[in-house]
């Protein structure tokens, strides 16, 4: 992405595990300087042992991360945090339990130096179905799920295998295009939430850092020599259920320029690539190890070799 601060929203209803996820990511930031905005009526949302200093509503966290709480005024907090742009690699926003991610996405668009990376919505495997049917909160919960690029189905260890299967099936029926990641204690890798740093590595299994991950993840790397239609490729990667959760890369267009692809779950973005990009196009795709489908991704890459009209 460009010089914008990438922003990931972490949404979901009360008790789904948003705060647990935030703490997990801060604990496993791996050198990434994360800034976290939290909005909850809650007690101090950051584990005490992570905190190195407090100054008003700003908390410094070991490893160069910061956390800022905001009350009713997200944009004011965003305006405050972007003044520290140089010290931030990625911004996470933990929304309130009743917030609609879509309205926060709209607010972000007002600040041109912030760029939405993706929307992660946490769902509690034990309660999500019941919440989605709740007389008062059902439509709010369903709207949260509908706005998710990736749904983290959390607390899978607290339900029976039958129940897990039932709730997974229900999620797919409710949100057919949803990308669902199972987790316990919100233990999903940083790469899924905020993406990878460097895109040039051999195919790798992502080894869980904290040992709490439920699922195994795999990164697949592709080199793409011939020119492609990046919009078509991005749309195909976001649309096909190839077990893909994130993809990032550069491909050469038919006019010779490079385009940057960025896929988070079902969200696809294509932008002009930075000027220094050269050599073959490349793509790295991350997904659940037992689900990611190399041949489906290859098929999408192949299909994008058809030039758009005009070439």
């Amino acid at each position: 992405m460009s010089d914008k601060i990438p922003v990931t929203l972490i949404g979901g209803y009360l008790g789904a595990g948003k705060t647990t996820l935030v703490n997990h990511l801060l604990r496993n930031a791996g050198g990434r300087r994360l800034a976290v905005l939290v909005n909850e009526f809650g007690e101090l949302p950051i584990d005490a042992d992570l905190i190195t200093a407090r100054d008003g509503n700003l908390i410094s966290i070991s490893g160069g991360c910061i956390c800022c709480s905001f009350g009713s005024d997200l944009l004011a907090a965003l305006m405050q945090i972007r003044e520290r742009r140089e010290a931030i690699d990625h911004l996470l926003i933990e929304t309130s339990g009743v917030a609609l991610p879509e309205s926060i996405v709209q607010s972000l668009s007002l600040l041109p130096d912030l760029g939405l990376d993706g929307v992660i919505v946490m769902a509690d495997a034990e309660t999500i179905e019941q919440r989605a049917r709740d007389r008062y909160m059902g439509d709010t919960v369903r709207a949260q799920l509908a706005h998710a690029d990736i749904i983290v189905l959390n607390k899978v260890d607290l339900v029976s295998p039958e129940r897990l299967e039932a709730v997974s099936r229900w999620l797919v029926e409710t949100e057919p295009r949803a990308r669902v990641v199972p987790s316990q204690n919100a233990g999903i890798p940083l790469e899924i939430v905020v993406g990878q740093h460097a895109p040039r590595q051999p195919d790798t299994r992502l080894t869980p850092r904290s040992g709490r991950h439920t699922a195994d993840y795999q990164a697949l790397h592709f080199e793409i020599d011939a020119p492609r239609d990046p919009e078509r490729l991005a749309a195909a990667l976001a649309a096909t259920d190839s077990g893909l959760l994130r993809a990032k890369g550069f491909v050469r267009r038919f006019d010779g320029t490079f385009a940057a692809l960025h896929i988070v779950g079902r969200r696809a973005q294509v932008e002009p690539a930075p000027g220094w990009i050269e050599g073959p196009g490349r793509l790295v795709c991350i997904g659940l190890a037992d689900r990611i489908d190399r041949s489906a991704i290859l098929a999408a890459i192949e299909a994008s070799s058809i030039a758009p009209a005009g070439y």
Partner: protein
Amino acid sequence: MITIYPARKIVTMNPSRPLATHVAVRDGTILGCGSLDELTGWGKHRIDRIFADKVLMPGLVEGHSHVAEGVQWRFVYCGYFDRTDPGGRVWPGVKSIDEVVARLRVANAKLYDSRQPLAGWSLDPIYFDNRRMTRQDLDQISDARPIAIMHASMHIMNVNSRALELAGLLRKGINHPGIPLGDDGLPTGEIKGPDAMTPVGPHVGFDRALLAADEPGLRDFARLCVRKGVTSAADLANLLPQPAVEMMLRVTADEQFPARIVSLRVAREISPAELVERVVELGKLSTDRLRLGMIKIVVDGSIQGFSARLRAPGYYNGAPNGLWYIAPEQLREIFERALAAGVRVHSHTNGDEATELVLDTLTAALKKHPSPDHRFTLQHCQLANAAQFRRMKALGMCVNLFPNHHFYWGDQHYALTVGPERAERMNACATALANGVPMAIHSDAPVTPLGPLFTAWCAVNRKTAGGRVLGAEERISVSDALRTITLGAAYTLGLDSEIGSIEVGKSADFAVLEDDPTEIGGDKLGDVRIWGTVQGGRIFAAETI
């Protein structure tokens, strides 16, 4: 020292002695109200004839306002209706966009620094044949200085090109429901909703000051109270940080400060446990003129902003349902902790679904913490139906309805937001009283002007600005309305043993009137001329305040 005030008439609101001619006061407390003969028995006294030709009522009680009303007047008034500022100047309403521009131009000419922002407030373009104001309208005044006008609803503002530029919004490609674009792809200058306003606010002088109030704002608010006959006013949603509390304690302790302020801590930014703990501590700081120790919760949004939570069949124009500002779990925890600690909670609910959630949540919380006389109050509660009022009664709840809405936005509610049937039932004062629900009525100043007698007129007549009587069946009598703006509001604030009627033992708080509200006629209730107030025995004339 005992002072006996003869008056043309005293409307006491004390049912066992409704009318009197004299009231005796000692050290700010009423010794008695009756005839001169009855009162002289208290001993050595002097007779003060200052109110001999006036009508006295209990000091009026505004049950839902915001001291921020006092801050607004630093901006240029651009409302459609005439409105009185704290200094007593009546600002005539502006009737067209051209008049708005002309008024701002006058203010513009008085500013020396060409970069200093210029701000107006209380714009209501629905009265301008729906012609929307644009940035080009305001650019006529100045293109160098940022200019903004807040709408009367407080949900929308208009800004000029310079303000958009400073906020980084004068560009193409903006995709936000709160920022409409013109044919040129650039923002029109209308900014809707609090999120969209935030990037612009600091550049035009509309900071969060709109929600809080500083010392001059608090003093100006109290001056407005005197002009409107108000001796006690609720400041319904304040974050009450410690420095603000200390300022309010100091200012209200001033011997010349003319009103009693009841300030509620809004449930925001801290957990329910911390909230209740903080509010209990705040309660211990209460003085006679600054009452603390209550909680305000905002449950949903507003009807005209389509952010109120409605039950089926929802909005009349098909708009999607509104927003929750709190989750039921959080509401329940605050209710339970507050009931356990004996802290009163007022809940803002505009839509009937939000009201239903509060009723359900309190029903459950009361089973856990049975609390006789809790007086939890529904604020606004505009769309409640009869069944909900019956539940309020059964639960021991109070309600504070918002009849001013009929006058200012009733025609829009009828045509657009909730449709004819619910518009006629909105703020169902008669149903609330018929069901025995303790009731107040309010202005929500600065959203609509402070003035309980005007609010009473709204409840008695239910007339819209367009002249329609909106729900004749829900009109209430003058005597019910007058009781509601005194004892009724005092009851919801837990102050009915101290204020709300002129009777022995209560605070000497009077509204001093030139006209008799019980004789002037219900259709003229809002025109009653107000001389000033007596608060805690201290006399404040509107003319010199």
